[in-house]
């Protein structure tokens, strides 16, 4: 399968301007610790055409930033995000997105829809501006996409506040689809919705995947959801990928201790009355301002050995297509 999206050594740094104390220290010739966060730190990743890739990690691990670079709304500090071999963003001082083939769906449909625009205008704005449809055809086009996401065509005349969260997320999906994208980047698209509404939106994604053959990057912290919808998963920890592979293989046989720990922490529905034993991971996510040396996970890892404190493990691809960044991977079984 050809890769539709290819990320090559993507890096995103965020630096805050030096504070007064730091500037004074520099004037006096003292060493200054740079305040730089590596939100995404040298990530290479491919998404094949028609594939749904689930990107999983805890808050602050850089999964949203990676998604935004792939969607072309945030320029990388280094490296390239390519769509069919062409960068999704131009170069220069203030790079802009150069393609409409990637579209994004955000977590909070209360923030991502302009409250002063009618639904019809929200959906039609992009296609008209990019010459995909003429103004005359726009109404029919909008109605088509609203129908595709399960909304009544009369919705076009109404405003976002007249809709519930689930319906608003459908509008956001229609807006993305109206641009005829080849790939959707979905950043926690159901995290703010109720369970029964989540199921409706997940079913909509599954239907779109079947009907339109959409490629998707599905970013979520919800492992159950990712397992349900993704063909392949990538697990992130503190800006780096730690494990990738086919969904079933990773869930049934995690090889990175962090993946294992995440799966163990995931609350599971208990149908028996037996007492539950929790197996939480120790410790908290270290500050991305000062990630631990060596393997970022070594402070919390039950299988830590001396090498993990100093050497950064590379993400290595094995014959079965799994990728793993660990010095001492778990043995399957």
């Amino acid at each position, binding site marked *: 399968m050809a890769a539709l999206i290819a990320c090559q050594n993507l890096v995103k740094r965020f630096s805050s301007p030096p504070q007064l104390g730091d500037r004074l220290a520099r004037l006096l010739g003292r060493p200054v610790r740079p305040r730089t966060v590596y939100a995404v730190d040298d990530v290479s990743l491919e998404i094949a055409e028609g594939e749904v890739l689930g990107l999983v990690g805890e808050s602050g691990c850089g999964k949203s930033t990676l998604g935004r670079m792939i969607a072309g709304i945030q320029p990388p500090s280094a490296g390239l995000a390519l769509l069919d071999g062409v960068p999704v963003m131009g170069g220069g001082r203030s790079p802009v997105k150069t393609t409409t083939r990637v579209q994004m769906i955000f977590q909070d449909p209360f923030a991502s829809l302009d409250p002063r625009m009618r639904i019809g205008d929200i959906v039609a704005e992009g296609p008209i501006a990019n010459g995909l449809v003429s103004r005359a055809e726009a109404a029919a086009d909008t109605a088509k996409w609203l129908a595709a996401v399960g909304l009544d065509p009369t919705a076009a005349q109404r405003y976002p506040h007249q809709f519930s969260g689930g319906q608003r997320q459908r509008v956001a999906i229609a807006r993305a689809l109206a641009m005829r994208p080849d790939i959707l980047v979905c950043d926690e698209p159901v995290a703010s919705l109720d369970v*029964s*509404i989540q199921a409706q939106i997940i079913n909509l994604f599954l239907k779109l995947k079947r009907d339109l053959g959409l490629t998707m990057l599905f970013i979520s912290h919800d492992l159950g959801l990712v397992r349900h919808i993704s063909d392949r998963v990538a697990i992130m920890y503190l800006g780096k990928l730690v494990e990738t592979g086919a969904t079933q293989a990773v869930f049934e046989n995690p090889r990175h201790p962090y993946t294992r720990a995440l799966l163990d922490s995931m609350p599971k529905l208990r149908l028996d009355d037996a007492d539950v034993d929790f197996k939480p991971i120790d410790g908290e996510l270290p500050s991305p301002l000062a990630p631990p040396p060596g393997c970022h996970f070594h402070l919390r890892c039950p299988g830590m050995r001396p090498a993990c404190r100093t050497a950064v493990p590379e993400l290595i691809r094995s014959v079965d297509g799994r990728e793993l960044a660990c010095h001492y991977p778990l043995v399957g079984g």
Partner: protein
Amino acid sequence: MNALLAVENLATHFATRNGLVKAVDGVSFHLDAGEIVGLVGESGSGKTVTGFSLLGLVDAPGRIVGGSIKLEGRELVGLPQAELRKLRGRRVAMVFQDPSATLNPVLTIETQMRLALEAHERVGAAAARDRSADLLTRVGIPDARRRLETYPHQLSGGMRQRVAIAIALLNRPSLIVCDEPTTALDVSIQAQILAQMKALAADFGTALIWISHDLATVSALASRILVMYAGRIVEEGPTGEVLRKPAHPYTQGLLDSLPSIAAPGEDLRQIPGSTPSLANLPEGCAFAPRCAFADAACKSAPATRRTATRAVRCHHPLGEVAWPL
């Protein structure tokens, strides 16, 4: 048996411009000492308002308009604020969803914990510090003495929630109402806090009402489960039994919506429609418009039907339990 908490026919309504919102409408349940009960529902089901009502924290335009809340035999509905204040924190405490909104940003952790103690007893600074540090250690905060000197913004979200839990436990209340306390946290931190909460509740003999939308979390923690829909409890029973054999179609629908139930890649069985507006509830059973089993009988409000351990509010309960009429 003498119940720790007995709620009878509780009704909390909000008089708004758009009409009367019956956020809680005829809720009855009881809780034994040391018991952990999960209160489950979607947003707008009235679960949080139920929790707030128990502590007398409902603000205008909301008001408890009827029913009774008996804590350790004492009636809380109609109690003057001054009396409620004496109970809050000492007999019944609450842990909220967002710890960055509940902790005071300009006071150190030590000051906040001392104030919580001083509200109910005379206690010296050194003793307050000892008790605070001891509790922080027990909720899993390393280096507690040093943490006492920090401000909330210096702590992570998980640590802040641990502090909030420690404050709730300070006066050893017999009941803590936990309103989605782990929803804002990452899964690894959530698992740590769930494990700790369960152990602490057992150690202190504290009963918990665990309010959540997450069936999986509740199933790991609670021995009994209450399912709320549109301001009413629609199903109640031992957690495992209810989740294995739900009697209310809504409970069944919630379970079916979970991705973990379906085979990967298959459509989830969804509940059609969305939760009704509480200001404009349909006549009869509030779930009927979304229910696959609804018929003419559902035009009238169903009564609660009880067996020894379970209860359901439905004209057509699922499963083979013999429900008395």
